[in-house]
């Protein structure tokens, strides 16, 4: 049999192809399903949500009790510039949050009224789908969690979030934190952060800090699965708004006029 270089290469190539068939099949046939956590069943009993009542929120002009409370306990830095701003809960003028509510006559009434914004903890969160490292994921109780240890700072989630709920640490945030809360870690440079629905407080059976800080009770937090919960009562027979419901992300933050 004549065995020239061409023949050798052909057989070598085929052999390699044959050898890679099995591992290749093993890799590509696997459907990557996230493993449910051992606490999944216990967590799945609840579905946390929040309702914000505009009328109550607008009673005191310039009030930022909830923002201060949240940013204090979570060591959120104040860098002073809009570009590098880190925000977990913040305000935006009404017409910018709900541009679709522009009506000829009533528009003026709401103009420049502040709307509280925070992570919507979507049912179908785009940020989770974009994250290449699974540093962000949806917990069984609906909270979109962040693992700061895992985040590589690629900012795909920020591009994916239609609500602008995520902020990136362009520098070391520590020098910009006035009073450090020892109970909660700070973040480091190159990490994305956002509201965590006070997951650490929920674990201690406390309500989120912003809800607790609100004097007017404009913020209501509770279990959406429980028909008798505070939030379900607050939402009952009300006209409810959500931010960009047409995107199908199903936010868990509701606005009541």
């Amino acid at each position, binding site marked *: 049999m004549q065995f020239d270089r061409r023949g050798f290469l052909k057989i070598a190539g085929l052999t390699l192809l044959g050898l890679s068939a099995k591992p290749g099949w093993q890799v590509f046939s696997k459907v990557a399903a996230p493993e449910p956590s051992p606490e999944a069943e216990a967590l799945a009993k609840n579905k946390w949500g929040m309702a914000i009542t505009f009328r109550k929120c607008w009673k005191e002009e310039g009030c930022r009790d909830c923002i201060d409370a949240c940013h204090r306990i979570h060591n959120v830095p104040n860098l002073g510039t809009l570009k590098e701003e880190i925000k977990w809960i913040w305000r935006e003028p009404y017409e910018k949050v709900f541009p679709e509510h522009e009506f000829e006559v009533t528009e003026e009434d709401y103009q420049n009224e502040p709307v509280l914004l925070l992570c919507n903890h979507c049912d179908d969160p785009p940020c989770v789908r974009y994250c290449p490292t699974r540093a962000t994921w949806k917990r069984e109780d609906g909270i979109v969690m962040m693992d700061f240890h895992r985040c590589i700072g690629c900012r795909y989630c920020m591009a994916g979030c239609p609500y602008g709920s995520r902020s990136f640490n362009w520098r070391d945030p520590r020098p910009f934190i006035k009073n*450090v809360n020892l109970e909660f870690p700070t*973040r480091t440079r190159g990490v994305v952060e956002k509201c965590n629905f006070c997951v650490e407080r929920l674990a201690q059976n406390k309500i989120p800090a912003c809800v607790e800080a609100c004097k007017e009770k404009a913020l209501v937090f509770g279990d959406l699965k429980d028909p008798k919960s505070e939030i379900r009562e607050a939402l009952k027979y009300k006209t409810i708004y959500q931010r960009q419901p047409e995107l199908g992300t199903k936010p868990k933050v509701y606005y009541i006029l």
Partner: protein
Amino acid sequence: MYDGKKIIPGLLIFLGLMTYPIWHNTVSGKMSYVPKPELPTEKDKKECVEPKAFIRVNHKTLLEDWKFSVVRNGIRTYQASNQKTYNISLNRTCMNCHRDKTKFCDQCHTYMGVTNKCWDCHIYPKQLSPGPLALHEP
């Protein structure tokens, strides 16, 4: 050998310079240095979450497991081998006894040339004591 008079002394000087750190440390007594992590002296802080031998080898995996447990699974208590239950927290559990990381963690880590990023985010109690985040004054 050509130029043996130059090459051999040159090699000797080179070897001497290369091994200088070893000689230096032997003479100055640094070779026999053993890191001494400071252990808490209070009576109620004598016992760690796991036996000393286990912690010495496995503290990294233990911390990694704790992190995973709290962040990913939402389980915030740890069932230790001594049947006690501990609150999983770097600050409230570990650093509650080992208050100063420079006297505990850093002792071995510096000696072994190990760097970790724990304290980029987590704050240990001692770090705060002279002022707000004393180590990172702007």
